[in-house]
């Protein structure tokens, strides 16, 4: 076999292995506008729904408003450099441009509401966010992931009615 073919095959195989099977540390962990640490907040006992309050009633879990962040951080470490960035956003009335970490393709109609109602823990899909400084995707959003859980929970597995319409 020619060495080129071998190299190409190896590289391609490595690419597939990395792409589909490995939870790479760089993957889907964007640098955010403010280096927000979920871990610090989680360790201080703040519940997910305190900030992501729309999850039980909407498709979208919701992001805390800038004012909500300020509600604590006017008092809590206001001089910390990252919190100073927050003050700049508020003072210039600019929404914080968070980068999206978790998403599903356009043809999947995911809705948080029934998952919260069924008692699914946030960590089931989002991974152990509470131990992450910078959020990254630990659980791959593959159809298999959804289906396995839907079957286990005896939830709808109807392709069209449940997800793809």
């Amino acid at each position, binding site marked *: 076999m020619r*060495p*080129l073919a071998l*190299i*190409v095959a190896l*590289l*391609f195989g490595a*690419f597939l292995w990395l*792409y589909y099977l490995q939870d790479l540390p760089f*993957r*889907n962990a*964007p640098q955010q506008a403010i280096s927000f640490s979920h871990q610090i907040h989680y360790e201080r006992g703040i519940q997910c729904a305190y900030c992501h309050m*729309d999850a*039980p*009633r*909407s*498709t*979208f879990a*919701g*992001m*805390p*408003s*800038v*004012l*909500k962040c300020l509600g604590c951080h006017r008092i809590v470490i206001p001089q910390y450099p990252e919190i100073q960035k927050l003050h700049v956003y*508020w003072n210039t*009335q600019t*929404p*914080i*441009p*968070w*980068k*999206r*970490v978790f*998403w599903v*393709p*356009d*043809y999947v*109609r995911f*809705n948080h*509401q*029934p998952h919260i*109602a069924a008692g699914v823990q946030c960590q089931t899909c989002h991974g152990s966010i509470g131990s992450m400084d910078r959020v990254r995707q630990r659980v791959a959003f593959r159809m298999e992931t959804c289906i396995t859980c839907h079957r286990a929970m005896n939830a709808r597995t*109807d*392709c*069209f*009615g*449940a997800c*793809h*319409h």
Partner: protein
Amino acid sequence: MLRRDFIKASTLAAAGAASEACRQPQQILPLLAPDPRLIPGRPQFFASVCRECPAGCGLVVKVNDGRPTKVEGNPDHPVNQGKLCLRGQTSVQGLYNPDRFRQPMTRTARGQLEAIDWPQGMARFQSAVATAQGSIAWVGRLETGTLDRAIRAWLTRHQAPPPLYYEHFSYDTLRRSFQITYGAPIVPIFRLDRARSLISFGADFLETYISNVEYAHQFSDIHSLAHTPTPAYFLAVMPRVGLTAASADEYWPARAGTEYLLAQALLAVVTNRPLPAGMEQCEIPMDLIERAAQRLAENRPSLVLGPGYGNDSPTALACQIAVNQLNDALGNTGQTVLPDVPHALTQCATQAEVIELFEQRPRLLLLHHANPLYHHPALPLGAPTFTVSFASTMDETTQRADLILPDHDFLESWGDYAPRADAPGILQPTRIPLYDTRPTLEVLGEKPAAYSDQELQRGLAAGVQSAAVAHRAPATPAVAPNVSLAPLPAGEYTLIPFPTVQLFDGRQANRSWAQEIADPMSKIAWDGYCELHPETAKRLGYEPNDVVRLRSPFGTAELPLFVSTWIRPDCVGVLIGQGHSNYGMWANERGDNIHRLQNPAPLADGLWHAASVTVKLESTGKNRPLANLQTERLQRDKRLALALSSKEPEPPTTPAASFYHFHHPYVNHRWGMAIDLDSCIGCNACQAACYAENNIAIWGRSSALSHREMTWIRVEIFEGDQGHPSTELNPDLRFLPIPCQQCDNAPCEYVCPTFAAYHTDEGLNGQVYNRCVGTRYCSNNCIYKVRRFNWYTPQWPEPLNQQLNPDVTVRAKGVMEKCTFCVQRITQVELDAATNQRPMRDGDIQTACEQTCPTNAIVFGDLLDPASRVARLAADNRGYGLFADENTYPAVTYLKKKARRG
């Protein structure tokens, strides 16, 4: 490793990295401060009022994350009671019209329009007002309430005459006749819902006449078997069968212009007086007239409506006066005709007043959402008149303006509008203004007196300036004007300019839904046309789609020909609303403006009449194919749209025996629909609602010519043939809305190689877009032809993409799609019920088509629930399944139309 090999290998690695890079994260922008009314991801709803026509229906606007995406009727509004017509549904397309003005514009010395900013625009406006010295004219759409007061106050302050509210459908004849018979020139309120018998001498009350949604709703209440066990009798007398006449029990194709004789004859029979002379001109047998008079007298209260736009002939005033007298003689005044409750249309200027104003050449003309030069192309406009337009988009009048100060769209504005005293409505902004526009109220700088608490408590009733007419029955019958009908000159044809429910007076032509959805009668999309009877066309040697030149004493128009049996052979019908020259990307280049054919001046009675000319027809040798989406009107024993009748053969109630069929085991629900053909008036509102809800693509004329239509619920029109021949005197027309039938034994499902079309556990024929590879086998195998294929990548020119419903996938090229019974609505109601742990009730889920249907012809629900409305209707003895003998077991039940009573 060779250098070449290294480059090849690194290219592969780069490709891998690029595929990762394709998934660049999007941004999530949080709110600055929390808004308790706003839950991101869930729609908000705002009540408002529709300003697409003067009917003033109540709206509920659905707003997804700051974008209005759909409008629905407000169930609490007295006019439309939760329903909306096609035009109302398109109002979101008006908001997101790609042709809207982005900022103020002014005309330069070289005649070009140039963008300016608001301070410059305001300075020019104020200097124009100062130099006009009171020679100011206001021509604007009908306003009531705050804006009306502000305009009047502003004009008074500048020593100018009161505003002329311009509506092309201004009911001049109706108002003059009420002046003569009832003593006040008003547009009255009609109460169809109280009538037991109904005659229309041309009023197209299911299409454009005064308040079409309200009248459609009321008409179905008295006329449909679904809503009344004893349907009222409806006789239509008009030279052409439009949507209104298509729902009639009896139809008289009286000679155009002789309607007044028939009204006088009915009056004579009812009051035992001698018949008018010249009855033979009507071409209607006397026994029919006597029978109709008898039916009117027996079924009281009754209601007689006068001429509409299409037969507003020189004798229309005589006809309307006779109609008023007939109503009075039958005791309808105060019952079904309310002459002491004026409609807001009463305040409109007459066409004659508008024509006179333009001829006076005021120094400053202010145009507010009015396009008189489209309807009256001969009107003079230009120097010395300085014209300021507050229009949102370019139109035929605004293109001659010197200064354009664009107003907000009505969905971006505060406002109020009351079509009548008991139906006041407040408009509220539903989004941040898209462009640098400014409300006209602010431009005028008027601060109208705020409403007092008392007024607010009365529901802003002061919005309509009540004419306070005390009804007095005419002591002596008002003298009918002495009219006579000249014989039609040889080789000439009476011009019937007919408006439609879709295009109204032409203002809807810039909405792609109004263009893409085929006209309910002709089934032609995207074009203006003229209509001739087959006999006439044959005699003149014209083929369908030939371009015919119509020549009136006042102008010519060239229009492609549509041949139809539903018009008198001595008439030529022309569609109102197309033929725009400068009204945006959807409206332009759709034939000639037919208003050039009309008489530009008022007639001897002082009124401008829409249908006062006869035209000659000339061949042009040209041909323009019309996009006709349904070329076959006969049922040819296919038993499609059925009516109750003893003569019509019943379709087999049980399907033929089959080896293959099995019933799907439904556990929770089986969604089903019932469509009442006796209620359906064919108005196409369901189609527009479906387009808005389901992100259906618009392909345009060339695709329509190839029959590549995308609508998920088409409304077909058929003539009844078996035992009920559709004669010219009595066309038997039936509308058949066809959504996906969601068959239990669906032909589409068996043939899909990728399992994209499959059966869900709730009875829907699912269509999984991401699995579809576009073989189109399903469409070939569907016997209802309801599956639609995306031949191209759909385009929504900015900012129309903001209208898209986020709950529905936007389909791509190469994907099959079809009606889903609004599965996104089903799912949301199911989820909400589960979250709140309450059972779902019948009626909780409304499909978009059902929600908007003005006559409640569509009922959606769960067939497994024996108490649901749809389950009861499925077992109704009028019910049948379309092609039920083909073993498809459809989930849609059609309810037969009532037998004709002609």
